[in-house]
């Protein structure tokens, strides 16, 4: 009798607990997103530095290559995208490094919520801080590089779809190198090769647009890369973080 009562009592409790956890996925996501954005707003230089870097790298090219409009408009897509890759790379370190150093990462790993949910929130915050400003400033730099008029929409669309991929793939690299004291160079060696497909399809889309042809095929490839990395990267990051904090 007693045993039956006992089991009857305990079972519903555990089910309620599970439901509670599941309904809090969104809450956890928002909690971590808000926290990361708050920290970023108090550290404005972290937002501004990659952006200034992006602008300076791009302004160097007209100075080095020469101001001929024809040459510049030819290499403009490549320059903007390579600069975007490097600017993202520069800001990746912040994603997990400070959390690792002050122990917040341990606490997040030990929270009952699944790892991918807060990892996704952190990556999302990273994109909002570093990826989104690039998209807004890129058209201005396009003017500087005499980018073909027909290419602006393509440039914006490839950046919109492509920069989240940079944040997602970069997060895997950071998660793997977070435990290493000077992982900066290693990080770029790990991450830059992964960025190649995005770079190829993005610049190809912009070039195709400049001669007035449809570029939806290239966009579809970038979109596929985006959804693929959105699905797998948070789990890969979770596994990598566990190894790095071991």
């Amino acid at each position, binding site marked *: 009798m*007693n045993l039956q009562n006992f089991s009857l009592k305990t079972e519903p409790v555990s089910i309620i*607990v599970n439901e*509670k956890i599941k309904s809090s996925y969104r809450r956890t996501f928002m909690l971590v997103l808000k926290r990361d954005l*708050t920290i970023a707003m108090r550290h404005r230089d972290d937002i501004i530095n990659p952006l200034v870097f992006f602008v300076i790298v791009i302004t160097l090219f007209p100075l080095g290559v020469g101001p001929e409009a024809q040459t510049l408009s030819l290499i403009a897509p490549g320059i903007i995208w390579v600069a975007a890759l490097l600017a993202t790379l520069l800001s990746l370190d912040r994603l997990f490094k400070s*959390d690792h150093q002050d122990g917040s990462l341990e606490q997040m790993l030990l929270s*009952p919520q699944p790892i991918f949910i807060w990892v996704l929130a952190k990556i999302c915050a990273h994109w909002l801080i570093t990826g989104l400003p690039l998209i807004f400033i890129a058209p201005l730099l396009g003017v500087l590089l005499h980018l073909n008029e027909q290419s602006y929409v393509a440039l914006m669309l490839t950046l919109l779809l492509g920069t989240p991929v940079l944040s997602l793939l970069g997060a895997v690299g950071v998660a793997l190198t977070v435990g290493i004291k000077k992982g900066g160079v290693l990080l770029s060696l790990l991450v830059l090769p992964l960025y190649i497909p995005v770079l190829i399809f993005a610049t190809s889309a912009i070039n195709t647009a400049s001669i007035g042809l449809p570029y939806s095929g290239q966009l579809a490839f970038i979109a596929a890369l985006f959804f693929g990395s959105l699905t797998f990267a948070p789990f890969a990051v979770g596994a990598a973080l566990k190894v790095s904090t071991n």
Partner: protein
Amino acid sequence: MHTLTEEHDSKRSFPLISARMLTCIREERLLFDQLSLQVNAGDIVQVEGTNGSGKTSLLRILSGLSQPYDGDVFYRDEKISQCREAFQQNLLYIGHLAGVKDDMTAQENLNFRLALHGNKTDNSMDHLAQVKLMGFEDSLACHLSAGQQRRIALANLYQSRALIWVVDEPFTAIDKEGVARLEQLFIQHTQRGGCVILTTHQELISIDVSAIKKINLDIHYDK
């Protein structure tokens, strides 16, 4: 029938967390070998050992942050890797890193940590008052002292519903009065049916020595 009721009532003596045949190797050095332990509800366990004897490693393995070279950790009767959610809901780990963000205020830090573990944040001001951080709730953590930062982390203990407390050197940078309050808190927690696993080089003053289970890692230390 009688034994069943007894078993039901004496839930306190059930093992909450246990480890079997743990082996830990760090940088090709054997820290401990075939270490087994069992922590019941109501236990205070003090892990002892010289610096570098593997106290922190043991605590990290018990909380699931590190993987042992060999052996397993069990929560109730399940391996912790197989019941991650249930285990981590009942675990509160405070490591030697405070886990406090410099760019957030004391209250934001505490609220985030509580919410992350699914605890209520309504009373966070009271908990900050408990750890004597009243008046500092809006100060950025980078403007607080090391001891005050640690107190933010320790304020979690007041709200946590977790049964298993794993605390690594909780008394570091904490003043005498704070230590006494913490010890009281540990006693209360064990009376409620929880357990505390801690490392410290200080003598525990207000806790009865006979009530403390000690694990000495120096015995396992292989020269």
